[in-house]
């Protein structure tokens, strides 16, 4: 059985939309079909946060999550509770988030304000207090060009001081039957399909049937294919409702992260295993992006500047791929063949990534360099994992993103260090060897020269970090 109607609650009221355009964004639907224009379009790429709305989902932790409506396709909201800025005030009584923003002069031009309201609202629903560090995280995905953020921060700190309002409650997600939509694109005439399978087997069968399909997870990348590149996607398979696909499971020797697990979902477990990785994840995208985007997607899309592959490669992570009912397991670095090319057969998909536990005595560092600290794409990202026996390097894995067409290991640099003394002279040799490992390119994020110099300095920093951590303290926010 399948159904062709997307249903969810909008500000507490049930909504059913039959056979919508699968790539209609929630933002366009809200603004055009529902005349709910409080949610704004600022960039259509999930970077400015003016379109932030909140979804409620009992299957997610936390239950209330901020999301960018500009890149969320309408069918992906199926079964969820959607709250927009119009849904907060009750009978003219403003929500504490709204009241605090007014009293602390938190809006100027007001265009970004609904997005800030919603990001703060999600936090308000999930928690009872907030501190500076948390605010930096929950607001990293909301740009304001007028206020300099200071009054918004003051408002956020005050929002818990108001009497608790009556809130919209969580709706129960609709679980039964696969969502199967078909419609003809009125402009291109293309027939568009959307499937939301419920089980892994269903997914494997469908993808076998439609190997040309685009696998849709958080749509933080695929969304932009539509909003920016204006692509018409013929077949979409949404993995968001596949049972068990978002699992984050501790095994005997590591962590299995299902390809459907969002950054938010996997964050705590990864941070516990590798605190440095936890800090890196805080800087990937924004809260909205991390609520939607998946770690599996960050790997599967093959980008040379994804932030998860370098640390995972350094840590010796493995990828579990599935086609039909067959699975295979490969070293993560082997997945990335060349720019735009991965070791993945038609119909084969990433099922999970396995991240091993820290080896005894392992030293690990990961550093991301970008023009802006938060919510920026890496100019480069370097990750280093090492074990010593006394002063001898017995294991070293170095991986970089942004230095080549794929995330890749620095094999020459590793060779310069392996089985050698962990000493300045060998580090310097390895730094030079990075020049043989990589010929980075120049683009709008950084020049080739800077990329190589910074990559070398990160290696130096890894050495310092071990020798004299107080000297290498990163300039970090918060």
């Amino acid at each position, binding site marked *: 059985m399948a159904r062709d109607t997307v249903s969810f609650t909008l500000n507490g009221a049930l909504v059913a939309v039959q056979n919508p355009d699968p790539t209609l964004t929630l933002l366009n639907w809200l603004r055009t079909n529902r005349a709910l224009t409080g*949610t704004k379009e*600022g960039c259509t790429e999930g970077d400015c946060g003016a379109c932030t709305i909140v979804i409620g989902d009992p299957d997610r932790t936390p239950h209330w999550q901020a999301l960018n409506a500009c890149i969320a396709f309408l069918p992906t909201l199926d079964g969820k509770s959607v709250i*927009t800025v119009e849904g907060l005030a009750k009978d003219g009584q403003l929500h504490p988030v709204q009241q605090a923003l007014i009293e602390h002069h938190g809006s100027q031009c007001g265009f970004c304000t609904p997005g800030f309201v919603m990001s703060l609202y999600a936090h308000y629903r999930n928690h009872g207090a907030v501190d500076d560090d948390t605010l930096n995280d929950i607001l990293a995905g909301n740009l304001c060009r007028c206020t300099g953020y200071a009054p918004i921060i003051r408002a956020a700190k005050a929002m818990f001081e108001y009497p608790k309002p009556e809130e919209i409650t969580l709706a129960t997600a609709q679980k039964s039957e696969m969502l199967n939509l078909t419609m003809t694109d009125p402009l291109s005439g293309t027939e568009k399909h959307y499937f939301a399978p419920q089980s892994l087997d269903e997914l494997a069968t469908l993808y076998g049937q439609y190997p040309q399909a685009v696998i849709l997870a958080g749509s933080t990348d695929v969304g932009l294919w539509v909003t920016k590149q204006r692509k018409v996607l013929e077949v979409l398979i949404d993995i968001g409702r596949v049972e068990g696909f978002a699992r984050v499971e501790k095994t005997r020797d590591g962590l299995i992260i299902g390809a459907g697990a969002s950054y938010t979902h996997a964050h705590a477990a990864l941070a516990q295993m590798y605190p440095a990785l936890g800090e890196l994840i805080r800087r990937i995208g924004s809260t909205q992006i991390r609520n939607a985007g998946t770690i599996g997607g960050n790997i599967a899309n093959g980008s040379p500047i994804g932030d998860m592959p370098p640390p995972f490669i350094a840590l010796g992570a493995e990828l579990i791929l599935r086609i039909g009912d067959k699975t295979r397991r490969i070293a993560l670095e082997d997945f990335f063949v060349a720019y735009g090319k991965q070791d993945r057969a038609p119909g084969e998909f990433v099922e999970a990534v396995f991240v091993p536990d820290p080896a005894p005595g392992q030293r690990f560092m990961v550093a991301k360099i970008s023009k802006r600290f938060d919510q920026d794409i890496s100019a480069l990202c370097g990750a280093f994992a090492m074990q010593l026996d006394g002063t001898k390097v017995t294991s070293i894995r170095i991986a970089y993103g942004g230095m080549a067409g794929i995330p890749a290991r620095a094999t020459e640099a590793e060779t310069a260090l392996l089985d050698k003394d962990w000493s300045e002279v060998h580090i310097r040799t390895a730094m030079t060897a990075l020049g043989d490992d990589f010929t980075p390119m120049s683009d709008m994020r950084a020049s080739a020269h800077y990329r190589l110099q910074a990559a070398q300095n990160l290696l130096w920093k890894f050495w310092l970090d071990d020798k004299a951590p107080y000297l290498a303290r990163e300039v970090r926010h918060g």
Partner: protein
Amino acid sequence: MGKFSDVPHDSAHKHVTGKAVYIDDMPLLRGLLHLQIGLSTRAHARIISVDLDAVRTAPGVVCILTHKDIPAINDVSPTGSGDDPVFATDTVVYAGQAIFAVAATSLAAARYATAMAKIDYEDLPAVLTLDDARAAKSDLEPAQVMSNGDADAAIENAQHQLSGRLRIGGQDHFYLESQAAQCVPGEDNDLTVYSSTQHPSEVQHLIAHMLGRPSHNVTVQVRRMGGAFGGKETQAALIAAITALATCKTGRPARLVLDRDDDMVLTGKRHDFEIDYHCGFDDTGRLAGVCLDMAARCGCSMDLSAAINDRAMFHADNTYYLNKAHILSRRLRTNTVSATAFRGFGGPQGMMVIERVMDEIACVLSKDPLDVRKVNLYGGEGRDFTPYGQRVTDNIAPELIDELAHDADYAKRRNDVHAFNASHQYVRRGIALTPVKFGISFTTGFLNQAGALVHIYTDGSVHLNHGGTEMGQGLNTKIAQVVAEEFQIAVDQVKITATDTDKVPNTSATAASSGTDLNGMAAQRAAQTIKARLAEFAGGEAGCATEDVIFAGGRVIADDRDWSFATLVKEAYLARVSLSSTGFYATPDIYYDRSSHSGRPFYYYAYGAAISEVEIDVLTGESKILRVDILHDVGKSINPALDIGQIEGGFVQGAGWLTSEELVFDEQGILRTHAPSTYKIPACADRPAIFNVALFERGENLEDTIHRSKAVGEPPLMLAISVFSALTDAVASIDDYKTLPDLHAPATPESILQAITALKHEAKP
């Protein structure tokens, strides 16, 4: 009842509930057409052919607009320079230029169709960089010179000399609401245009000009903008003009809302500059003379570049007496988007170079840069004339700087920074105090005028309209406060209405920080006119002199009579007293001779100072602002909360300009940073971790401005120069402050690491 209080922004309730209406939020009218512009992909090329057949037949397309559809004049240049065509004709002069537009029944259809255009180009040599432009001598107008004596001789005879070059990047406005307009047809060929513009009158006049119709056919309305920052002063006209053209051609309402990428490639930005400096000074660091050679990349057209570059020259002194100054300014044409107004309007670039000079003098003399700044401040015998001959009579910089340095513990913290640097090899800190003196008035004299319109209805409620526009700065709130104060009624009794060219005509742009100064005075005068009539009526009723009638606390008292404001209004109406008035204001006492760049262009100066403390990572060039202390002069603040909002926001925007915001054009002249994914304005965590902002309590405008307040829109942006100076200071620690780092703006991680590397003469630690 109104002035000197923290009244919240009049739209704050609407902002937080999503009920504030921006143009794209307006209800979709019957037959509304959605527009999309087809943009040039070449920086400089002859258009061989434009094949729009597939566009025309695409689903939903109603019509196509090109230059051939323009009834009268294909130009929207703000100053009549005639070099800003609505649509390109036979050549394109920048990548992103509008060539055609598609009107369709949905935005999706308009976009789908636009992508089907086939345009053949023949590339022409493109002038892209300042080096290209200097080599091509592509000056937009003759180089301008401001000079007050023989600076070369003064420099040569001084004890010390130094020279260098500073590169300063441009900046995208990144208002959150992109450019937008909607046009609705009326009777008699009338058009009502809703435009997100700082300059409704100019939009009106340019549309009329383009269509060959009288201005009275076109009405332009602006309720609010979702940010502007100068980017909607001239740049909104093109967008509005295209909607008007679509409506004229089809008789249907039309809407054009740029998506972010189109907005960023199509519309103008802050000018990037390269400034060569040469100066002489004595052992105390005091300047004997300064020679500056400023080159600005103006892009493909004149726009406001003349006035912007003039203002750069006017602010090359900042708070300092330059002694003998020779300031040369070159305005260079390039095949890039036309640079335009942006908060500060050239002033920031002018100030950047003199602050660099202060830092470099301090470095040469091994002095605290603050001491060098102080010894150069205006003040003292014969040291109070600017290079353009205006006497600085309101100079509060010395006391303001001292107060800030004292309150923020500058001396101790500078020692702490040095101690920190002595014990940290790979993380360094820097600290700097920089001041601001910003001239208030349009330097184009006739723009310093404003009008307002006030009505009182018979129930005592007040309707306020004025020529200024609301872009988030709280202008409407402040002006409502002024009117409420005049009538002594509550602010919420004053209804703020959309700026509308048929209520107040021939307005100036809301720009140059002048919104409250000009429109506040005009509104006050309108209110005073009505108030005088009411007083005369009340005096007559009570049998007392008009001067003895008192408006206070919502009441009007005359001798033994005491009315509520509303009751008096009602009685006055019945007695046939006019309850409506216009008000007009023109700034007095300003004059300026552009041929010699001398006179008194500014009515007064706004002052401020900031101390920034920063940290850099020596291995990667990453930086962070640790703490900022600001003391800023807004005269007597009409609304301290709104003024502090301008200061905080302006500072962070300025810090973005000088650190993370980098405009990257590739070798073909294509802008590669055209969305927030690639162009990085400050995010929440980039605000200073400690951010103390105070208003200068003794501040009071010496001139008779509205309630003795001062303008606040632009000046605080330049307080962020302290961040750049502090970063310079942090880098300078690498070789123990012996050399001034060759740091340029924006100070991205790459720019900082480059400066560090140059100091260390080798890349590796």
